[in-house]
């Protein structure tokens, strides 16, 4: 167990940035909090909740995956070293869920896995919810993690208590900016965790919503009624830390072509429309149902855990009030 003084965060990040690219939440124009390369915004110490989750660094909005020219075809793999500082526990959990999906033996995704492998993760536990829409506890998580990170930091005011969660994490804690902790820190840590466990008032009732879906109480009318308001912008999907749907297309480049992939959304009709014109998800209601059933029903069947980590980003972003929180609340009325 070590300590990292808050005044040392920036010097530490700057030093790390010499050998690997450092990303952390920074403010742009005092308006947007984004998880971007160190120096591209203003780091203000306040980690908060970024508009778009850290997913964008392992699964970018658009990336080149293959280049081909004449007979030659080559895979494009990004295996640059990255250090991500200030990941929220819910985002880290989302990455863990995504790992399972991307690592499935039959269809491992090399583009994701290469980035993931070279990524150092420094999580900062939430001693209090960064926003009103946070509901990780209701979603079965915690505002801190038990495992699956390299380093986890706990906010104690002037400094962070630092715990290593991996060999890489132990290495990081050897850095000169991390100071030896004292015995009392252990108590403090438990105190923070206990306080954090009771820090969230937002309880939309995800567990019960899962039961309602299991019992198939949400019928077509239920979803169509909600979908009347859905404007099909895909915003909820793009900001979601566990959504990984993508579209693939080729663009001409230097006499050949580059195959790219970009985020896509299951809410768009074209995502499921077949060449014949037939669409197995023909209405906006059926697509909205699909999206939420995927997370709250099928992920549980496939992976034993819900695909919603309770970060609340969809509810922050949806311009018509149809994020996970509102959907869960509506389900609970059934």
């Amino acid at each position, binding site marked *: 167990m070590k300590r990292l003084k808050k005044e040392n965060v920036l010097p530490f990040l700057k030093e790390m940035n010499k050998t690997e690219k450092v990303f952390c939440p920074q403010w742009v*124009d005092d308006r947007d909090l984004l998880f971007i390369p160190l120096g591209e915004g203003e780091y203000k110490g306040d980690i908060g909740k970024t508009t778009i989750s850290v997913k964008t660094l392992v699964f970018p909005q658009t990336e080149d995956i293959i280049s081909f020219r004449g007979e030659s075809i080559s895979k494009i793999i990004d295996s640059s070293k990255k250090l991500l500082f200030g990941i929220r526990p819910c985002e880290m959990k989302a990455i863990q869920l995504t790992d399972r999906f991307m690592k499935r033996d039959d269809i491992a995704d090399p583009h994701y896995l290469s980035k993931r492998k070279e990524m150092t993760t420094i999580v900062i536990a939430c001693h209090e919810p960064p926003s009103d829409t946070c509901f990780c506890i209701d979603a079965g998580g915690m505002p801190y993690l038990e495992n699956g990170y390299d380093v986890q930091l706990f906010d104690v005011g002037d400094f962070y208590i630092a715990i290593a969660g991996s060999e890489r994490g132990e290495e990081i804690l050897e850095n000169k900016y991390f100071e030896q902790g004292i015995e009392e820190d252990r108590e403090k840590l438990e105190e923070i965790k206990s306080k954090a466990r009771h820090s969230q008032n937002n309880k939309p009732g995800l567990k019960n919503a899962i039961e309602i879906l299991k019992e198939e109480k949400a019928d077509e009318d239920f979803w169509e009624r909600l979908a009347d*308001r859905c404007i099909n912008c895909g915003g909820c999907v793009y900001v979601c830390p566990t959504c990984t749907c993508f*579209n693939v297309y080729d663009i001409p480049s230097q006499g050949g072509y580059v195959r790219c992939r*970009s985020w896509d959304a299951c809410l768009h*009709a074209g995502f499921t*429309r077949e060449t014949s*014109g037939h669409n197995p998800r023909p209405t906006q209601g059926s697509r909205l149902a699909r999206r939420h059933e995927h997370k709250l029903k099928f992920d549980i069947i496939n992976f034993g855990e819900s695909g919603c980590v309770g970060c609340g980003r969809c509810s922050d972003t949806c*311009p018509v009030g149809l994020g996970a929180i509102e959907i869960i609340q509506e389900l609970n009325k059934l």
Partner: protein
Amino acid sequence: MAGLAATFGSGAMTNSIQEFDDAEAFFVIGSNTTEQHPMIASRIIQAVRQKEAKLIVADPREIKLAKLATLHLKHKMGSDVALLNGLMHVILKEGWEDKEFIKDRTENFEPLKAVVAKYTPERVAEITGVDKDSLRKASEIYAKAKRSMIIYAMGITQHVAGTDNVKSCANLAMLTGHVGYPSTGVNPLRGQNNVQGACDMGALPNVYSGYQSVTDPKIREVFEKEWGVNDLNDKAGLTLTEMIDAAERGDIKALYVMGENPVVSDPDARHVSRALRKLDLLVVQDIFLTETARLAHVVLPAASFAEKMGTFTNTERRVQLSRQAIAPLGGTLPDWKIICEISSRVGYPMNYDSPIEILDEINRVTPSYAGITYSRLKGSWGLSWPCPNEDHPGTLFLHKDQFARGLGAFDAREYIPPAEVPDEEYPFTLITGRVGFQFHTGTMTRKISILEREAPNAVLEMNSKDARRLRVIDGSIVAVESRRGELHLPVQIKQDIPESVVFSTFHYSEKNINELTICAIDPVAKIPEFSCAVSIRRV
């Protein structure tokens, strides 16, 4: 815009978007709100469902909002004035008008009374197809609710009677005292993110910024002083539709088009191309090489919204700051810089440092924008005009206590039929519009693969009964012919469209529906009608 300016003194939404939440009754006419203004539609839907607001939809098509409506009036194409006069007839007959409001805040009431007296429910039913009971019910809902809102869009303005339609909406609102209060008013929904801003800035033939008339010598003096010039032109210029006609006649020799694609967006497209080809000089300034730019002698590549800073003014009169995200690509310049360069080269040096300096000038010469300064915009989500000074919070709703023009002016209008009605040779009415995934002529949205996937090609929407009669199925190709052109389109059978009416969109230049549409224009606003009569046959 001309219609509301004449009656209220200001041609903009009277209310702000947030006020939709608290309206008690909505009267939506000529607006497919869920497709074109989905954020506003979402508020209407919530108000209807959660607060039991009443919703009247007047539209020949069974649009999505119509399914949620308390009452759906399927009036015939182009019969809006008759319908609105009919509503006023019933309201006056039943004594549901707001007598105090009429007396204190309006003028010219007597002529209105005389005109609407002629629009008996029987006559209205004949013109519009809306039955007596529905007309009465709609009148009652609209008149009796405390906070009633009229919402309209291009569905009523793009007609030869477009200005009449708008004036009739204004008449209805004034008759019932439904304007000048929160969540109560007349709300034209603007079709583009900054069309309000463009109008506000005087991108109209007859006004400077803030709708200050070019014919008013006092106003000209203000601008002459600001710009250090003498003898600014005191005559109103031509509207877009007039310019195209003048080009065809040879009266206009040069045209400078910025961010507009009239070859695809304007009615009677072949006429537009023909006219533009006659010009000695056509300059097009755009971010992509549009169909219009392809005809140009000079193309000026402009920077996109992401490559520049400036402001947009949205439909609720809210001026918002837009920040630059990336540097201009590939040798492009922001529009303001291009204009400065050209102006300087033709002999009037313009040396603005940045859009901030331009906004400073706007503040100086535009009373309604005087308080909308850069420093205030920087720290806020925008300000709605009128905002006359830096301490003013901006205006959520207009015409409180008095109209912008003083007294609200009733302007009674008579029904006139559309320019081109179906006949034996051309038995269908073609209406044009948009889908939510494409924007206008698609110069931007059609370059985005996911949007293109959602709405990849032009279709002709048709009622199933008409389809049976023509012996076509979903996907059959038909020839659609008007007096001006012919186009082959795949059929899409829809239940929400009435018989003898077909619908298509103008997003697709390879199937340019505007080769068929008509350029009959409203005599006041000069806005074209677009809708026209067509014949359809299997091919």
